């Protein structure tokens, strides 16, 4: 999976949420998308997912311009919204069965069981999703996308609701996912955490991409760019 984004811009009404975003990602990249609230992180993720139409600009997936009308391309894109995208009144197993069938995958009960065990939810498999805590819902989403194996996985702030073991689960899943040549873009405020696992970082600031580079150790450029919108330095890369 490769992705190329050119001049991507989005305006809400009379305000630009994103302006002139350009970048290209190669297979296996795990990108940390950073930036303060309102920087446009969620907008960028939704644009790439095709959930909102761009005002300007293009997104290319594997050399094909991304059009929502193309189901084969939609299949390739996953979006993990913690707590969302789950039917509350279906059981965990039914949720997974529904979504795997939606993605035209044969719903092998054993595979679903394994996916649930991997996120430590097997004993809750036949409970309604409404009985889950938000951290557990996030785990369920992880199970969902580990079954569907999208070529491009987008995550919107998954750390907030996960506990320690949940974070470990998520990180090992993401690492494994990237090693298969898939791309992951993760928006988060937990800078130190995402910087640990990512191999590229991007900073969005007021709708513009102010920083975009593969990870190095140490990383003074990043600290400088990051410090621009966090003058107090509460969070830093190390």
């Amino acid at each position: 999976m490769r992705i190329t984004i050119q001049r991507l811009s989005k305006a809400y009404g009379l305000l630009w949420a994103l302006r002139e975003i350009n970048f290209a990602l190669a297979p296996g990249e795990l990108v940390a998308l950073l930036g303060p609230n309102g920087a446009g992180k969620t907008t960028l993720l939704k644009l790439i997912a095709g959930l909102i139409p761009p005002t300007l600009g293009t997104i290319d997936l594997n050399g094909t311009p991304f059009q929502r009308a193309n189901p084969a391309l939609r299949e390739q894109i996953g979006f993990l919204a913690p707590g969302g995208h789950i039917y509350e009144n279906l059981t965990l197993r039914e949720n997974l069965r529904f979504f795997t069938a939606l993605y035209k995958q044969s719903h092998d009960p054993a595979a679903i069981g394994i996916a649930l065990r991997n996120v430590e939810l097997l004993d809750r498999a036949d409970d309604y999703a409404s009985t889950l805590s938000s951290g557990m819902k996030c785990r369920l989403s992880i199970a969902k996308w580990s079954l569907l194996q999208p070529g491009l996985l987008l995550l919107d702030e998954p750390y907030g609701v996960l506990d320690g073991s949940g974070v470990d689960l998520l990180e090992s899943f993401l690492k494994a996912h990237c090693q298969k040549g898939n791309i992951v873009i993760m928006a988060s405020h937990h800078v130190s955490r995402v910087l640990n696992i990512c191999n590229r970082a991007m900073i969005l600031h007021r709708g513009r991409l102010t920083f975009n580079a593969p990870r190095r150790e140490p990383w003074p450029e990043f600290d400088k760019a990051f410090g621009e919108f966090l003058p107090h330095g509460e969070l830093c890369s190390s």
Partner: protein
Amino acid sequence: MVKSVEKTKRGTGILGALAFTAVAVGLYWGLVQAPPDALQGDVQRIMYLHLPSILTAYLSFFLVFIGSCLYLWKREKRDDNLAHSAAELGVLFTALTIVEGSIWGRPTWGVWWTWDARLTLTAILLLIYTGYLMLRSLIDDENRAAVSAAVLGIIGFLDIPLIHMSVYWWRTLHQPPSILRPDKLPWENVDPAMLAALGVNLLAFMLLYFYLLSLRLRLGEVRNEIKSLRLSRGAY
């Protein structure tokens, strides 16, 4: 670009002048030149307004349909502007048609309103396209509003023949059709002077309609331009 703006401006001006000349001639023909109707007397002169205005309304709704289809296909703001403008004018002319019909009905039938097929149909059209304009105004996101309205514009237009048929059958079941019968074409046994008056008024309405439409389109264009300018200056 400035030159083409000047050109369309001049074009609109000429269209306006033509329209108002035609309207003046139409008024003269309709009110003075044409003889009173043998059966209905002078009240029939309202017909010189009634028929052209309903025809322009139908033209409007057709343009809404065209604009909606083009917008869904190509996503050009221009087409959405056309659909929106035409809908606004269509609602105006439909409302006028109902008022004329009502005023004509009072001396002819003795009542302001009757559930005559044509009156009912016109009222339904008014409801549909008022709904269209309301839908537009109730959706905040501009693109969504345009897409939703385009879908409604297409569905509404496809529904018109069905509504027409059903309302017509429904009325003919209960009472024989009143004055305008579909089996009798309007130009049979009609004084040529009346026909001419109708023709002149029809021409006048068409010219006037396109004049108003071009004004409304330009208004939409300027508004779009203001929006894009605001955007390009942008907050960030």
